[in-house]
């Protein structure tokens, strides 16, 4: 019988400890609950989706940023390639993802926004409804011609009576859009030859003299320009590209018609969208704020800036708010521009 009080005591003691522990847990739970509200991504895995195969420009940016973003967010950032339908597949998936999914995506905003404006097949997103984190870089399309080809400058192209033949992978690609919009602005006749297996192959057709010109993002044309294969004749932007100092910008060439002038403004605005970073639509405010802070923290890191510079892929950041504003203004475009884009799909 003597052991009973002891057991009882022990039991009570145990209970006290248990209650204390529970209370502590409760407190902990509260504390972590608060923290979780503020730090949704900390200590978790975050998927950083690239809508293309490994090895392209988008992939390079994502893989360079991932470790820095991870450090800033305290998260494990994992790069995932989800190629398909020229980036529409992954972008649709992001649009469908719930706000509780830890997923961000780098976007080919020039391509996806054009597709949305044109009302193209397969678009199941609204660019302005994404939770916008910011812009990573600009990627204005740049027209390249063969070094010893028939056309030596963009003025030549504008004045050309003969059909200018652009090479492209397929309708709806950025290279197709840039070519047909430029032709609409300046009124020179074009034919877009499609079916090339990739941008490189299309450019090779220009180098071999089988096509006249090829439009692609300035950073992908940089290598061939530096090795002397092609000449970059115009950048679809109002600001010159630092690494292509000799290439004029498209706003240097004034279109003849007023309609052309308006289309030019629309094109320049579209091209500044560049490479964006978005999260699924409807993210709670604090969650989006956490991502935006992480993004700003990562992109202001000198090591990252230097690392990307070394790969000739410089960053050109816009904050989330600035980028959203830009996106909305581009989406609210003129019916004329929308009609030109429609012809590219």
């Amino acid at each position, binding site marked *: 019988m003597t052991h009973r009080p002891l057991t009882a005591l022990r039991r009570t003691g145990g209970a006290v400890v248990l209650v204390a522990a529970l209370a502590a847990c409760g407190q902990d739970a509260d504390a972590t609950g608060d923290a979780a509200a503020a730090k949704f991504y900390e200590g978790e895995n975050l998927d950083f989706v690239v809508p293309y195969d*490994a*090895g392209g420009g988008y992939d390079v940016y994502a893989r360079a940023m991932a470790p820095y973003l991870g450090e800033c967010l305290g998260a494990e950032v994992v790069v995932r390639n989800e190629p398909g339908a020229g980036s529409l597949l992954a972008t649709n998936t992001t649009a469908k993802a719930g706000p509780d999914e830890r997923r961000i995506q780098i976007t080919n905003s020039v391509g996806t926004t054009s597709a949305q404006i044109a009302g193209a097949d397969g678009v199941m997103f609204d660019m302005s409804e994404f939770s916008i984190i910011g812009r990573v870089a600009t990627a204005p399309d740049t027209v390249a011609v063969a070094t010893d080809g028939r056309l030596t400058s963009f003025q030549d192209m504008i004045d050309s009576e003969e059909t200018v033949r652009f090479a492209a992978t397929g309708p709806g690609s950025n290279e197709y859009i840039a070519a047909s919009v430029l032709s609409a602005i300046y009124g020179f006749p074009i034919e877009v030859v*499609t*079916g090339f297996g990739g941008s490189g*192959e299309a450019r*090779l057709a220009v180098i071999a003299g*089988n096509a006249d010109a090829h439009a692609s993002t300035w950073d992908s044309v940089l*290598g061939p320009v530096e*090795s002397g294969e092609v000449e970059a004749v115009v950048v679809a932007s109002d600001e010159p590209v630092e690494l292509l100092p000799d290439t004029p910008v498209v706003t240097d060439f004034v279109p003849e018609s007023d309609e052309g002038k308006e289309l030019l403004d629309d094109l320049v605005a579209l091209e500044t969208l560049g490479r964006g970073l978005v999260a699924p639509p409807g993210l709670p405010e604090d969650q989006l704020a956490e991502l935006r802070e992480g993004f700003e923290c990562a992109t202001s890191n000198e090591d990252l800036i230097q690392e990307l510079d070394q790969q000739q892929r410089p960053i050109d950041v816009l904050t989330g708010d600035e980028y959203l504003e830009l996106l909305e203004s581009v989406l609210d475009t003129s019916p004329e521009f929308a009609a030109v884009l429609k012809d590219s*799909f």
Partner: protein
Amino acid sequence: MGEALLDSLSQVLQLQTLGLMLLGVAIGFVVGILPGLGGPVTLALMLPFTFGMEPVEAFAFLLGMLVVTSTTGDITSVLFGIPGEATSAAATLDGYPLTRRGQGGRALGAVLFSSALGSVFGAFVLAAMVPVIRPVVLALSAPEFFMLTLVGLTFVVALSGKKVLKGLLMAALGLLVALIGIDSQEGIPRYTMDEIYLWDGIPLVPLVVGLFGGAEVLQLMLSRSSIAGGAGEMPKRITGIGEGIRDTLRHWPVVLRASAIGSTIGMIPGLGGSVAQFIAYGQARQSSKNPEQFGKGAIDGVIASGAVNNAKDGGSLVPTIAFGIPGGAATAVLLSAFLIAGLDPGPEMLTTELDVTYSMVWIVVLANIVAVAAAFAFLRPLTRLTFISGPLLVPFLLLLLGLGAYSSSNSFGDVLVMLVAAAIGVACIRWDWPRVPFLLAVVLGGIAERYLFVSYSLFGWDWLLRPTVIGLAVVLLLVFVVPALRRRQARSRNAPVAEEVRS
């Protein structure tokens, strides 16, 4: 040229460079064995580590890794019938039947040794191409590529064996499947059933993994024995590796022809290894003394698939180095490495940076020799796996299959494609319909269509008059005429063909 070659060799042989290459080889070794997890993704993962490396060091690391994946990809193909890479499917066709008969050691010996020889051949082609690389690549355009796809399609006949009608039907089915996706001319979705996933067509990796690997695993599940179950008890020692090497040496013309096919097709952007393997395999069957053994465990089929696979790597570097045009996904990543190293692919790679180009030649050769030597050391434990009972091994293989299908583009659609392909594969095996003509048509159909339209858009009907097109048309004719003549000759001789039935 000789001096530059020696110079670059001494650069590659520096301690640090060699160490980086060995590290790359080790990583590539494992990646190659795992199906699906392919060279391109691994390269992209490793790219950031090359910051601050000298160009030759960076390529020793990356290229060493890349070329080894295609070598060790064959190991999975031969042992488990699951292609380790999309380019290793041909190795399953005869390598796996040999393993099922308990001759896995011999098949591996042959496939690895011919891989090593093939890589040396491919590297030699790359080195020899240097003076003529640019005019040759510039002379080839869409019309030539289109004609080459036609030449490739004629191999449907060779790959169907005695079942020519069945083979042609399977090829027709394959061409229909190749129509799925957005057409590149008008941008209209064809047979995509409103699934955006299908816009790019049926993806190759899950198709190959399912058609060959999935079918074999399902068979293994049903048979409930070990892979090498038919061969009886597990032998105390795994033998036959030496025999495989001797087989390879005896069949040296097969090695040579397959390597030539590999390095040529490797040079063409868009075609690459997934096509080259079957053309080399079909060619080996055509010229074999006992073509009826193909598909049942013909050692010359294994040798051809090993050699072609590694010879293509040297070839695929040609357009990348000379023009910065990647021949495939892997070389696209390699292109980023050029920029990181501060190099611009193009003319200067053949003049001022010639030593870097030649160092690539050496890296391809050395990395393969090291990998093959290392593989021989691991062969015994690996081959033992094939004597593990089916029910124990199948879950592990299913995991490999799922991983292989899913990791190619991180999409569940890929797993579905793999499962459907596996079902088709099983049906083909059960009712004896050839799978290879189907796959070849799926791959070539889409490419042929694209290049036909580009040819016409660029040149009008004049493309038919290009000398290289006419030359290839003659080849096309010969492909049909020569075997027919040979058959007639054989018939007229009327001698009973002594069928040397080797295992």
